[in-house]
């Protein structure tokens, strides 16, 4: 699935947060959206799925303009979104959380079942009947990804999936995301963890203060130390 973002602007109240953000995500590609805290990564993803009320610009999914489509329609069009703050339904069990995300299989996208997801995230399997509010942060992160995958998305946006996770878990997560990539999913990954981004990203976009400041392949980005020093170092 192709995602194209053209001159996206977003506002919270009177404050403009995004300024003409443009991005491109080709089929089967992983684009890492990098930037410091508060740069506007989450706002970009939220605006794409319509969770930021005031926005302008154009968002096109496989040739279809979804800029002002209702959030649920965007999800049903095959764009999965995994929020940074996880937003697990804590009152529901793990299995129920997965059920909320379930959608009919989509042609051209991998079809997930609860079982195949438990295979991808083995930790979740034993937790199936536990209230989701009672599982660990890492397990919740797995769950939030698994929940979105239940919708059999053709493109996926992950907002800082590695945040707050132990290195071992991050590694596990990276493997899982790679698996997804191999299955042909297009992935937009917002990250601060350069290690993870390097391991799985094909291309890089860097956002700073709501503006895209760099776009290039992972090789270009990795080859030029000054870029990360300028836009990412704290």
């Amino acid at each position, binding site marked *: 699935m192709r995602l194209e973002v053209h001159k996206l602007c977003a506002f919270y109240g009177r404050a403009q947060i995004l300024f003409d953000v443009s991005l491109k995500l080709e089929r089967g590609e992983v684009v890492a959206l990098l930037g410091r805290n508060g740069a506007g990564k989450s706002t970009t993803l939220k605006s794409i799925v319509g*969770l930021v009320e005031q926005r302008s610009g154009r968002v096109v999914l496989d040739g279809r303009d979804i800029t002002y489509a209702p959030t*649920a329609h965007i*999800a*049903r069009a095959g764009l999965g*979104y995994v929020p940074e703050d996880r*937003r697990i339904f*804590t009152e529901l069990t793990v299995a*129920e959380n997965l059920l*909320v995300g379930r959608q009919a299989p989509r042609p051209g996208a991998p079809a997930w079942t609860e079982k195949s997801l438990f295979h991808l995230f083995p930790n979740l399997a034993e937790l199936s009947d536990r209230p989701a509010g009672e599982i660990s942060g890492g397990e919740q992160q797995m769950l939030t990804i698994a929940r979105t995958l239940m919708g059999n998305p053709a493109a996926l946006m992950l907002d800082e999936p590695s945040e707050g996770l132990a290195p071992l878990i991050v590694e596990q997560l990276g493997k899982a995301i790679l698996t997804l990539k191999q299955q042909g999913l297009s992935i937009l990954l917002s990250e601060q963890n350069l290690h993870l981004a390097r391991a799985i990203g094909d291309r890089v976009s860097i956002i700073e203060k709501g503006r895209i400041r760099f776009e290039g392949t992972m090789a270009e980005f990795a080859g030029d130390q000054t870029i990360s020093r300028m836009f990412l170092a704290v």
Partner: protein
Amino acid sequence: MAFVVIQFLNGLASAADLFLVSAGLSIIFGVTRIVNFAHGSFYMLGAYLAFTLVEGVVGPALGFWPGIVAAAVAVAILGGLLEVTLLRRIYQAPELFQLLATFGVVLIVQDLVLLVWGPEDRIGPRAPGLEGAVSLLGHQFPRYDLFLIALGPIVLGALFLLFRRTRWGILVRAATQDREMAAALGVNERWLFTSVFVLGAFLAGLGGAVQLPREAVHHTMDLEIIVEAFVVVVIGGLGSVTGAFLASIILAELNAFGIVIFPEVTLVLVFLVMAVVLVIRPTGLLGRPEFAIRAASGVAEPPITPQSEAARNWVFAGVLGLAVLPVVADAYVLSVATEIMIFVLFAISLQFLMGISGMVSFGHAASFGLGAYGAALMIKHAGAPMELAFLAGIGLAALGALVIGWFCVRLTGVYLAMLTLAFAQIAWSVAFQWYGVTGGDNGILGVWPAAWAASPIVFFYLTLAVTTLALVILRRIIFAPFGFGLRACRDSVLRAEAIGIDRRQVQWLGFAVAGAFAGVAGALYAFLKGSVFPDVLAVPVSVDGLVMVLLGGIQRLNGPIVGALVYKLLQIVLASYTDYWRLVIGVIIIGLVVAFPQGIVGFFGTRLDALLVQRRNSP
């Protein structure tokens, strides 16, 4: 002992319909965040429709059980239609306007019911197979009540299964917790909201239908049940079906035993229970803390500012204009003008409560009515002169506000609004039932002003003076330290408390001040009309006040003046044309909410501001 058991079973039986209504209210609120005041109307429609369908007044008689089910289904469909046509348009509107819009529906349904079924009580048939009584511990116990006792747990169980075992139920629970995230997972909110509304309406309709063999169907049952349902939800916790179940049993049992011991004690018991619950758990027995939203802050408007020179001149000119009115106007016009001024005062006091103190009241009639009754009772029972009776009215209103306020400052947002309505309804029913003291629905007559103020002209000037003085005093308060304290609490409880403001104390006092001023209006009203009836305490008075304030714009200093003027004139004109003014007002309220979510003054004011800015910026 046997008697206690029987009385307990009686309580359980009457808890059934209360539970059905409260559960529906709670479920709808959980997902849509709308407190559906029209839920009592669904209940009433369920009862009337059941009566019609079972008896076959129009069309074939369906018989008892099919008729009951058909009535509930019909109400469910009506609920769905209401959601699709009205609520969908206002999910984004401030909470208060949503409440008001559903209030409009209440008014419309009341008149429609009168139009269709007339004012007489309707007595339904017995349930076939469940007529008569069984012998229980030596007492006769109605068979049908056994069915009702079983119905509550059955519905609770069915809802439990629905919410735990079906995908729909799981989606509803997910959306109740996080609507946005559910949407981001592809859950279609629109469909979910409509279906939830249908379920809630079905439960309310069923509640109304099943009590057909038990009680006469009448046209005030909507407000009676909604008030009880509000109390249930306050005790049980919004959004919790189990909480609604527990609380409706508690309430029904209090009623069942209270009536035996001493009917008046029931009210006291209900208050005591509510007080204990609120002190221990402000969100109710099983409520979720996140539902305690601050309603007033839902209205996005610029903060209140001292009025501009121009606005002050307008008000001044208005007072001057009124002062010369008696020269040109006849007695009728003067009495209309006097009444409007009284309602301006009432609206200002309500704005003080909502806009300044941040406490949304759906029961401001309590203060207005207590003011009127305080004055009237003083004259009737103590033969006091007008001046003293007037003070007594204000005193009673202030006292009432202190009592009501004590409870209310423990709540916020919708809980608070629901509780104020419940209190006002309770005050109404006391005035309505306590014949010995209040004269019941015969009211109190002969509440005339003293001889010196008896002429319409003098009374007009008296009202003008009192209203103007009250206006000045309230403005002084708004911009005095106490007023700043109130607004600080309204805007941020945490910050206000951090700078050493005792929020509850300040808000409690604010509640009392607003109540006292509404009492002034009520006392004036009593003398204007020369009589007092329970109507002064009734819901329409509260709604009138709300509409006036919201029409004018809740944060506009002169908003209530404009709102009261426009609305009262409209009402007087309408009432002279039609008996079904409630219907018309209901439609107007809904229309206004859909068209002007910021209020009239707010709407035109914002446009005016924009125009001025444009002018200034253009070369």
